[in-house]
């Protein structure tokens, strides 16, 4: 069986801290033409305590020969009261830039924001074979008061396989199928001989 060009989500830690921002694709390998959802998650904040995430401005870099941006679904972690936040999405040839600013009071953010939540899910169309890194190139993260927040970054990647490279059936399955056909054929012959 040809192995999918797979790469897990991991590498590059850009700062040291208990909290992380993780880029996690829904699958490490997908077929050409399909969609892959890339989650950008924050983990390791202190629930109900400072620091909370009050603002972020992050740029996700990808390979446009492999992936094409499709859509975004924003998270609600910076909108703890459900009253809305200020969001902005912009693009470059090979980047998606996400900006979200909480309009909540610092005390509400610090007391109500969970310790882990999703910033956004970005969907890409797999438009070319190969492997695309999914790297956060530029990250500005601030706490509820606008002070800089240091988070470790865990980047990801996704492999795209061309559709003409149809995965071959597993040999064990082929072997089993051959055995069934062989047995059935032999029984048929035996019946005809006895009959």
């Amino acid at each position: 069986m040809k192995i999918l060009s797979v790469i897990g989500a991991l590498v590059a830690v850009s700062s040291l801290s208990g909290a992380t921002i993780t880029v996690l694709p829904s699958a490490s390998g997908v077929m050409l033409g399909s969609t892959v959802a890339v989650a950008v998650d924050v983990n390791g904040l202190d629930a109900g305590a400072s620091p909370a995430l009050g603002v972020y401005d992050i740029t996700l870099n990808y390979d446009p020969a492999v992936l094409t941006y499709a859509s975004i679904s924003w998270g609600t972690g910076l909108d703890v009261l459900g009253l809305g936040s200020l969001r902005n999405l912009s693009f470059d040839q090979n980047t998606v830039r996400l900006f979200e600013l909480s309009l909540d009071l610092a005390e509400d953010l610090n007391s109500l924001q969970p310790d882990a939540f999703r910033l956004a899910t970005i969907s890409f169309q797999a438009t070319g074979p190969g492997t695309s890194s999914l790297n956060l190139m530029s990250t500005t993260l601030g706490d509820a008061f606008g002070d800089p927040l240091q988070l470790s970054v865990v980047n990801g990647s996704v492999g795209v396989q061309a559709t003409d490279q149809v995965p071959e059936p597993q040999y064990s399955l082929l072997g089993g199928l051959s055995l069934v056909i062989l047995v059935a054929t032999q029984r048929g012959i035996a019946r005809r001989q006895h009959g």
Partner: protein
Amino acid sequence: MNTHLRTIFAALCLVAAGRAAANAQTIRVVSPASGVVMQPGQEIIVDVSVTGARTRLVGVAGSAIEAPENLSTQPYRWQVKTTGVPGEHKIVAVALLEDGRVIAAPPVTLHVARNRAAISSLIADLPLLPMLFVGDRAKAPFSAVLLDGQEERLGAGEAAFTSQNTAVAAVDHQGWITAVAPGRTVISAEAYGRSVSLHVEVPGADRGDLDRNGRIDMDDLLQLQTYFGNKATTPNDARDLNRDGAINALDARVLTTLCTIPRCASR
């Protein structure tokens, strides 16, 4: 043995350094120096240096000079005439290497002055230039009036700019005015034996009230967002709310803590 090893290592380093130097092909315009002011029609020497490469041809070009012939041998030097078009111009030099590659020199900037006799006066487009906030920048709106009545904006390097009070507004040699602190001052330009000036006003405002409407709200946030990625122009830049020298998302979050309306809502 150790001495032998050290000698061999040193020799290898020398060879490596030599190869690195040989691989570093560079081209640069030695003269004229960037920023030089020339008179229209003035003859200048353009001197180009190429190192670390064998060249087939070297040439120079630019809107300020009449293009000379390319040269295939050193010295790469030309005597050329500046054109009569006043303003800022670039001169570039390129070399076609023996291996077919082309390398280019960083451009140098020349200022071609106007014919002094063709200027009737200098004027300011506005009597008063209102700056938007501390840290705001604007190009000094000075123009030369020609004898035929045409007005042409004074270019970079064409005039000497001064500020009467640099604690309120500073001006650089290219005529960019920076609002430093609330107040009012005068910015002047001198060129072609004439001078002109205008008033500059820098408003005072509450921290975060970028549009100076007495409220700190969504309009200020959206205005601040348009400056993301810029550097603060002065230590007291009104947009650099956390005073870290960069205007970015962190300043936006600081601004939300200053909003005078719940959730910064203004609409």
